[in-house]
């Protein structure tokens, strides 16, 4: 009987008790080397399929979560997470679809400079991290998404990003046209925007 398999129980209990998603190696650290963790995980995720709780994989990590279609029941008393600004959402999307990208590349796509706070917000949320430097003059920092990004947005891997295959096929994720960028968008302050006297804040 599947329920009494001690390896399965051990993996199930470990993931259930953990307060963060775990990799196979991390789980093995708790249940012992003798357990085939990967096999147990795949059996478990089958077992939980269609239930109120699901076992899901995000990148290299696994965790239990409630089934997405039950959101309407549970959302009620949960606070909506603070809304991200439009600039932050776009910046996150650019990093996720193009990673790794430098700040200048993000700016070239958006056509404006990004204010300092935007990347900070994304890093504070744990979705974005600096991922080294680009070996070009100036050695700019480049940014990439984190495992927590995959977890939060329910992505098994970056290949799961909505529409990424189509965008790639359409050439929209190619390195940006720097000629045009230089012509139009060098060194301009974006925060000023269309600075107005008639602000309707």
């Amino acid at each position, binding site marked *: 009987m599947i329920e009494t398999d001690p390896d399965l129980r051990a993996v199930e209990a470990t993931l259930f008790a953990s307060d963060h998603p775990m990799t196979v190696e991390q789980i093995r650290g708790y249940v012992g080397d003798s357990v085939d963790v990967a096999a147990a995980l795949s059996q478990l995720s089958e077992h939980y399929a269609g239930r109120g709780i699901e076992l899901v994989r995000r990148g290299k990590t696994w965790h239990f979560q409630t089934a997405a279609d039950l959101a309407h029941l549970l959302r009620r008393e949960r606070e909506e997470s603070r809304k991200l600004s439009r600039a932050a959402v776009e910046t996150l999307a650019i990093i996720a679809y193009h990673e790794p990208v430098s700040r200048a590349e993000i700016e070239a796509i958006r056509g404006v400079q990004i204010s300092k706070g935007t990347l900070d917000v994304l890093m504070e949320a744990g979705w974005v991290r600096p991922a080294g430097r680009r070996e070009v003059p100036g050695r700019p920092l480049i940014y990439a998404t984190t495992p927590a990004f995959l977890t939060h947005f329910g992505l098994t891997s970056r290949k799961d990003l909505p529409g990424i295959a189509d965008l790639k096929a359409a050439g929209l994720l190619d390195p940006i*046209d720097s000629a045009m960028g230089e*012509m*139009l968008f060098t060194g*301009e302050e974006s925060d000023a925007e269309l*600075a107005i006297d008639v602000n309707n804040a």
Partner: protein
Amino acid sequence: MTGPMLFDAEYPLRDESAANDQFGSDVLTIDIDGWEGPLDLLLALARNQKVDLRQLSILALVEQYLVFIDQARTLKLELAADYLVMAAWLAYLKSALLLPKDPTIDPSPEELALRLQLRLERLNAMRESGARLMGRDRVGRDVFLRGTPEGLRVVKARAWECDYFELITAYGQINARTAPAMHIVKKRQVMTLEQALERVSAMIGRAIDWTAIHAFLPPMADPALRKSALASSFVAALELAKRGLIDLQQEATFAPLMVRKTAR
């Protein structure tokens, strides 16, 4: 075709636009602050053409942008420099597109228009992707992790290392360090004063003239013993001199000590 179309109500990021749909200039006064740069404005204008961005009429778009900027200026709104740079560039693009083709211009106006279009497509793609990303089943909003995880703990146990040999050596050293000190001096080969007296007295009978004291020393290899012999012989010489048997003489400090039998 300019003002009202700019603020199509379907553009979701600007709520106030619907009410001001009909009057371009009014719209400008209330909503001009919402743009995130000229490219953003261009994209909003482009979406108002309500065609696939790839079928976009760049000329119409350029026209709209220029009109928009013009209106902003008539309203004496202060325009950020980048909007004006874009306007200048678009005005150039417009005239280049309208004029008869000049094959010497590189890149061609058509090429430039295509690049502009691609940029708009890109920005649009990222904007839509961002929205789709935000609309996914997100942890904490749509799906939930366990409310009260017991948590996994790693308990750090410090293991102290010490082996048996270390232990007993340490005890040995404490003892060695604290045991009452006992000094044992190695037995050394020496020439005693008695031996020296005997030897010097015996030899002095034969030495009629001044002789250096070294000559009375027995031939020996060990320098330590030699020193001992020298010292003992020196004391013996003093003793014999005291008894009046020999005379001692030294010409200067550290000069050889000379010995001879007392002249009678």
